[in-house]
């Protein structure tokens, strides 16, 4: 088989994956999730647990350590069979809180702490880098195997270059399908479909090789069984402590490995799929492990000098089975690529959500509120993908291609297992605190780094013979600590790291008190199945943020259409129209969770709190959390708000009713007054005219009664004029006659007109001609009307012996103040407030004629002229101040 054909097959295979992913992505974007709902997609996508390490390395493992490789399958099998205990809860939490990664889970659980998010991210990146390197190495090695076998004798381009090409291709694929959009919950339909397909390919490849080896080379199952019995493998005895440790570590891995968490929790679209996966995934693992031992036995028998890690490939090749070898190669290639793609997406999500975005938010908070965050997040994701793959490639070069695949996989497993106590504690123990989680993880990872990770940079690690290179010169781990000298080095590392981790986690949690948000999140996570728990909602209380600002921000994070429909729906749910719902804590929590799906819980929380002026948690919340009366508080808050609503409505109704009643009373009073004012002169007129028509009266009586009738008729006319005038003025439909007039001349006119007012008596008028030299732009007729009224009132009501009326003029800014002050008794304080009301003729003043509409008319006239009229108290006599603008503004 030529190198070109191999490369061509690879490219065709990759192209097929591209088409498949694009097709699924297209279907999904049209709303079809049917592919993803196909029964086997979810369990198949879970098979990224089986990487190149299990595809190639399991045979090598079996060749070296016999049945021990089974532990790597037993751990996950146990976890899945017992899925009801842990996985069900994890998936539920992931869906409810829109968890985007395992770092997000821990950060979110422990008070949306970003420090924890960063820590888990760093652990994940550190632990996964060798693992990714391992995949690159396996692809490079498989290329090399083909190269050495080829009859044309083509030389393999150097391993580093091959790895770089593979890494580049994977980066491209991951960026294309992993960062197409910012789905609200980080689901990638195209990628899931592609890896499910790859899962099928690798299973088919391994089964095909196995069948070929057993029936084609080994002479049937019984012959192979005899061979196994004949080898010294048969005398091998399982080491109980190693088995326990390995099963534990692989069980931890299925939960904590970033890629496993991603496909299992983040990409899960239906909880029912988990139930099916609980038997389908162990079945897949069983099939994957079925032929491992036969291949190892037959392979070692036929090719004793070959690298046992490559037997799956070298066995068919050496037998001249080119097509089978090709299939095996594609199986291994599938294992490696699917793992790298998903791992990279998971890590990139963590890095961008917990490191890049928070840093950016902190450095440029203003910009974060303004610019298009979606583009930014996607850019951060892509950058992270390239960085993760670059790190893997660099590790591959630095480590020089460790010859033992399984050892590198185990190192990664133990590293990620350090996250397990925090995860399990977080979802099952409300007392777990962020401080405890932090201490535990840091301690565990430190032990791991010293015992496993750092030594891996040196010589190859043999899982069965670890220890010689384990403790570097600078590392003085007490190997005989507590009498553990005889312990297997790997078990040693697992034991000590987990012991340190769990101890510090528990101690730290017991000794610290969780913060309010942490407390609330703890309740929400641990009690995730109690639907009604409203813990998360407590995080937000009515704040100062505007709905518009939130909508603008949400648009930039979850997309314009999604945000608008989200807001619209929320507004409708609240019984409002439009797109701006009330910022209830329910709504904010929901929005935060939606945003968390795109940028992570801690970042989403930080962004909303930025809009809320960092008023994250109130004293009320603290108290509520401390008392753990979450539901009660929620319920009473709802009651309270309902009660407040009812009270508000009742008050509004009462006010409206009072207003109506007041208006009605006013109307009745006004009608009564008008009736009285009209009927009074009519009574005199009617009575006297009846007397006159009877005749038989002395002449002087006729004259006297005639005069009364005349006077009362005039009074009636005046009253009607006043009423009409007032009505016009009040309606604002008055026609003003604006012109320029001299104030002194206007006062002259008013005095002349008022001089006929009865009772006619001598009245001393005090004026200052100089003050009155002011030109006004106003309706002079109307202004004179007001002056006449005031002067007549003074004449009528001033009760002084020698009545004096002082008219004082003063200019003040753009206004002219004209005061009319007499020397009478003035108006009592309690009546000063009502004199400008209609029919307010003061009841104890002797009747002097007029219906009490004069001052009401004056007030309306002045309002129409853009001025005011008011009573000036404390002037000894009755004093009125008219304030009139120098120039009337726009006609009112």
């Amino acid at each position, binding site marked *: 088989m030529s190198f070109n054909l191999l490369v061509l097959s690879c490219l065709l295979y990759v192209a097929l994956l591209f088409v498949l992913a694009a097709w699924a992505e297209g279907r999904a974007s049209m709303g079809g999730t049917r592919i993803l709902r196909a029964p086997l997609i979810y369990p198949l996508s879970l098979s990224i647990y089986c990487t190149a390490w299990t595809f190639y390395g399991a045979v090598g493992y079996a060749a070296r350590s016999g049945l021990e490789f089974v532990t790597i399958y037993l751990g996950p099998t146990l976890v899945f069979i017992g899925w009801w205990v842990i996985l069900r809860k994890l998936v539920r939490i992931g869906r409810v809180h829109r968890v985007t990664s395992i770092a997000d889970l821990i950060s979110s659980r422990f008070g949306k702490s970003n420090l924890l998010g960063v820590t888990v991210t760093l652990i994940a990146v550190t632990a996964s880098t060798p693992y990714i390197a391992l995949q690159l190495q396996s692809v490079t090695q498989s290329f090399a195997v083909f190269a050495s076998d080829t009859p044309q004798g083509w030389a393999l381009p150097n391993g580093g270059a091959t790895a770089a090409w593979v890494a580049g291709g994977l980066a491209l694929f991951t960026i294309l399908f992993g960062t197409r959009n910012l789905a609200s919950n980080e689901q990638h339909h195209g990628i899931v479909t592609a890896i499910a397909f790859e899962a099928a390919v690798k299973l088919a490849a391994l089964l095909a090789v196995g069948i070929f080896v057993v029936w084609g080379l080994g002479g049937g199952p019984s012959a192979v069984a005899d061979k196994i019995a004949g080898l010294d493998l048969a005398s091998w005895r399982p080491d109980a402590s190693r088995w326990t440790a390995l099963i534990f570590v692989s069980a931890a891995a299925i939960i904590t490995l970033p890629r496993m968490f991603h496909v299992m929790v983040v990409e899960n679209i239906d909880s029912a799929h988990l139930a099916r996966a609980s038997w389908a995934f162990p079945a897949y693992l069983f099939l994957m492990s079925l032929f491992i031992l036969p291949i190892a036995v037959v392979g070692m028998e036929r090719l004793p000098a070959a690298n046992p890690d490559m037997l799956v490939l070298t066995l068919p090749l050496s037998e001249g089975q080119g097509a089978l070898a090709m299939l095996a190669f594609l199986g291994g290639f599938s294992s490696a690529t699917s793992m790298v793609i998903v791992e990279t997406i998971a890590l990139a999500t963590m890095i961008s959500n917990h490191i890049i975005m928070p840093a950016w938010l902190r450095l440029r908070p203003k910009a974060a509120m303004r610019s298009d965050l979606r583009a930014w997040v996607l850019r951060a994701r892509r950058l992270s993908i390239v960085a993760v793959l670059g790190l893997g490639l660099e590790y591959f070069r630095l480590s020089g291609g460790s010859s033992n695949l399984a050892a590198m996989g185990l190192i990664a497993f133990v590293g990620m297992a350090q996250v397990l106590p925090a995860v399990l504690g977080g979802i099952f123990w409300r007392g777990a605190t962020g401080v405890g989680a932090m201490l535990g993880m840091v301690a565990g990872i430190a032990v791991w780094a010293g015992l496993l990770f750092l030594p891996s940079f040196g010589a190859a690690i043999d899982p069965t013979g670890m220890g010689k290179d384990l403790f570097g010169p600078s590392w003085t781990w007490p190997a005989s600590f507590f009498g553990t000298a005889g312990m297997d080095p790997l078990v040693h590392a697992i034991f000590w790291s987990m012991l340190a981790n769990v101890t510090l986690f528990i101690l730290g949690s017991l000794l610290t008190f969780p913060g309010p948000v942490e407390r609330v999140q703890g309740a929400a996570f641990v009690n995730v199945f109690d639907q009604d728990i409203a813990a998360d909602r407590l995080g937000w209380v009515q704040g100062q943020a505007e709905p518009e600002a939130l909508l603008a921000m949400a648009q930039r994070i979850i997309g314009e259409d999604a945000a608008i429909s989200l807001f619209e729906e929320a507004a409708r749910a609240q019984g409002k129209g439009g797109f701006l719902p009330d910022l209830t804590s329910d709504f904010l929590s929901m929005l935060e969770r939606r945003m968390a799906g795109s940028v992570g819980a801690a970042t989403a929380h930080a962004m909303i709190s930025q809009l809320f002026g960092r008023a994250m948690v109130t004293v009320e919340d603290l108290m509520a959390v401390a008392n753990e009366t979450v539901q009660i508080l929620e319920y009473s808050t709802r009651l309270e708000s309902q009660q407040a609503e009812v009270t508000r409505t009742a008050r509004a109704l009462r006010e409206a009713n009072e207003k109506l009643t007041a208006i009605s009373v006013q109307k*009745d009073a006004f*009608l*009564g007054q008008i*009736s*009285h004012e009209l*009927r*009074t*002169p*009519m*009574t*005199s*007129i*009617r*009575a*006297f005219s*009846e*007397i006159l028509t009877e005749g038989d009266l002395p002449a002087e009586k006729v004259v006297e009664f005639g005069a*009364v009738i005349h*006077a*009362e008729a005039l009074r009636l006319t005046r009253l009607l004029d006043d009423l009409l005038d007032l009505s016009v003025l009040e309606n604002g439909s008055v026609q003003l006659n604006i012109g320029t007039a001299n104030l002194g001349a206007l006062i002259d006119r008013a005095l002349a007109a008022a001089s006929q007012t009865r009772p006619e008596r001598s009245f001393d008028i005090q004026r200052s001609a100089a003050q009155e030299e002011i030109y006004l732009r106003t309706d002079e007729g109307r202004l004179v009307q007001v002056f006449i009224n005031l002067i007549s009132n003074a004449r009528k009501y001033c009760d002084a012996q020698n009545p004096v009326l002082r008219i004082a003029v003063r200019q003040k800014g753009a206004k002219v103040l004209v005061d009319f002050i007499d020397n009478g008794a003035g108006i009592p304080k309690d009546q000063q407030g009502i004199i400008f009301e209609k029919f307010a003729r003061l*009841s*104890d003043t002797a*009747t002097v004629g007029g219906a009490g509409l004069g001052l009401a008319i004056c007030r309306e006239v002045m309002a129409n002229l853009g001025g005011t009229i008011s009573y000036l108290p404390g002037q000894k006599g009755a004093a009125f101040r008219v304030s009139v603008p120098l120039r009337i503004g726009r006609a009112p």
Partner: protein
Amino acid sequence: MAGHILLIEDEPNIAEAIRFLLGRDGWQVTVLATGQGAIEQIAVLRPHLVILDLMLPVCSGLQILTDIRAAAATKDLPVLMLTAKGQERDREAAVAAGVSAFMTKPFDNSEMRAAVRALMGAA
């Protein structure tokens, strides 16, 4: 027969019309322009009939009526109430306070004379 009528009316022209009208029929009419001191005047003058305007300065006609009915000496004194407001509520209030007759301004001269005659006859 000579009868004494106390007229409490603040409108001088109306008071003059009623005084002229009833004086011509032979009644002796005393006019009070305000409600102030009305009860004391009634005690002094001991009129046979009180004609009372509802809207009076200082003290309302309704209050004076209540006071008249409250005193033992005057509790049966005929009272003719006049009002210019013409609202049904006022009539009801006056009836409730024990008014003998009620007329709305402007009134018909002959009706006024007939009412006074009837009330004086009853007294």
